[in-house]
């Protein structure tokens, strides 16, 4: 899957979970500082990404992604690894 597609789908998920407009979600946006996610919402986001991409993510590792671009990289990496296998 192209990285641009991953990014677009991730933004959609974030907008849905955090009830935001997609255009508020920039690549550099920090989930907590810019998008206002609290700890429960951060866990909801991890679960939503797993469902969206049909992948499994290690929770602590996933939560260490603090910005949208870090989350895109993280998901893209897992998808690439799954494709290889």
């Amino acid at each position, binding site marked *: 899957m192209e990285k641009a597609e991953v990014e677009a789908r991730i933004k959609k998920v974030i907008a849905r979970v*955090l009830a*935001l407009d997609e255009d508020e979600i920039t690549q550099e946006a*920090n989930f*907590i*500082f*810019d*998008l*206002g996610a*609290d*700890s429960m919402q951060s866990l909801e986001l991890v679960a939503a990404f797993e469902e969206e991409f049909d992948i499994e993510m290690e929770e602590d590792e996933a939560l260490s992604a*603090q910005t949208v671009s870090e989350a895109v990289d993280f998901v893209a990496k897992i998808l690439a690894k799954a494709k290889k296998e």
Partner: protein
Amino acid sequence: MSGIKYKSKEQIERIFYPESVAVVGANRVKGTVPYDMLHNILKDNYKGTVFPVSPREKSIAGVKAYKYVIDIEDEVDMAILVFPSSVCHLALEQCGEKGVKSAIIISAGFREIGGDGVQREKRIKEIADKYGISFIGPNCLGIINTDPGCNLNASFARNMPENGNIAFLSQSGALCTAVLDYARAKHIGFSKFVSFGNKADVSEIDLLYYLKDDPKTKVILLYLEEVSDGRSLMKVSRKIIRESGKPILILKSGRTDEGASAAASHTGSLAGSDDVCDAAFTQAGIIRCDTIEDMFNFAIGLVYQPLPRGNRVAIITNAGGPGVLATDMTIKENLSLARFSEKAKEVLKKSLPGTANICNPVDVIGDARVDRYNVALSSVLQDENVDGALVILTPQSMTDIKAIAEEICRISCCYNKPVYASFMGESDVSIGVDILQRRKIPHYQLPENMCKAFARSYRFNRQLKKEYTAAVVFKDVDTDRAHTILNEAIMNDRWFLSEAETVNIMEAYKMPVLPGILAVSEKDVGRIAGSLGYPVVMKVSSEKIVHKSDVGGVILNIRDGKEAEAAYQTILNKVSRTVPDARINGVFIQKMAAEGEEVILGLKRDPSFGSVIMFGLGGIFVEIFRDVSFRVAPIEKNEVAGMVQDIKSYPILTGVRGRSEKDLESLKECIQRLSQLAVECTQISELDINPLIVMDRGKGCYVTDIKIMLGTERRKSCG
């Protein structure tokens, strides 16, 4: 320590008196820290402007919210950060850009969790320094300023405390909420209330400097878990007490000490960090408390009433037993029962029933009503022989508790003498206790605690009157000579000095050391001993052997050459059997001291307070009797006598049971010279002079056995 720059009054003022506050990271979820922080500021009627900053909310609690602090059009004096620790640096960076100059970082997850937390704390400190932001925290409860002109409850405590004159500073946030609840029940008010958490920027020392000149604060309470800069704490405390006359009460947890057991010297093993802390606090005039209850018991006495001018107390009671308990504690605390004037006795006799006791304690008898308390309290307070009154009440069926409490408050206002009260019991007396507490009469449930509190106030007043003198600086010492010896040992990677070197250091500081020479072969022994003059003492010289007598390495009272040669061989044989791998330099021969009283002098370098001097009764049982006293160097001139008098066996030195008085002046000079050595030769980590022989008055002292150890880091590396 002298290079540390503390916060200015203006920098701390911006934290206590901001005109506008941004709560950065606020939310709408009741019962969470981000919400409660904002809610407390709003509900407690803060006099400034509040700006909630929340990435997602348009308004919180009816107040317009901003996405970022930089979006706020107006100036922001202070930011309160309630974001998770992982993004605090982002929030603080924006605060810097906005021109915010003070902050409170409530968030946890910094130095206290180790690992990444340490890095996070370093990062926020760097950002704060870059923008000149002074901040409290992180990992704290926040601050409260009850000054009606500000009314700021920037904390997540449940309630704003009453306005008062006590400042409370605490390293523990959780303790703060318990203290607020305790104080609220007793109507104890605060001027400033601070939970300073990890003190990454603003420390307790900064806050103390500010409180020194805070007109709203009359007493300062401090709860500490660690004393990270003991010398600065002593310095600022002395300054506050001397210049502002404000008492400082400290509750420091962690009285146990594991480190002392690993020490190599007597001083090292006796000077545990808590003993040092105790001594340093006393030296600085700080009142150390064992419990929170003690702390507030003492504080209300100090803040509500005038300080006792003397220690003569009058006890008024309606019950004999509690009167006796109070009398016992009065005497134990070095107070005295006032002897009433004839005039006072006459009034008491005329006004009280024949069965009443008109001597001190005044027993107004169990059926006393307000009239008897009135006459007793007024009479004793008018008496010039009385410095303060302690009023006890037990609730009988006819005791008019409310009226008596009101009368105590009324009479207390008429005299410039302290009045403390103890209404014993709980439920029946509560109506009277409430009146006393609201009208600032220090009240104690137990009369013993009342006496203890009165005694602390009296001692504090004495402390205020104490004259301070600088430490004596002897000009005849040869510091360069001492440094040369110490630095050479360090360069050669040695951590114990030899006998000859220790004697040399003592001579450089004009300590009265007995002459001694190292003999390296048996044939030299007779000549050396003869030149020193018999009797002599001979001791093995080896860097590996610290406690020489334990391995048979010391022989005393050698009277001629033949005995000296025999002693030489005996020492070598015994030591080589007991410590076969020790490299022996020879045998140190020293003139034997005449008989006198054996005391110990020592020095230890404490990581927080620096050089600490120890004095006590000497000999090999010093660790068993533990009859020692400590002072932080340099010891002020008028502290030296107190240090000598502090030990229980002091009367032995002044001459008891037919023994002659010892040379205390010479002893005091030795302590002062050692204090100077401690300050000037920081290479020394531990030093023992055991024993120092104190001769009869006018005959001086003699330093006999000395051990000097260098830096502890070196010792660790030597295994």
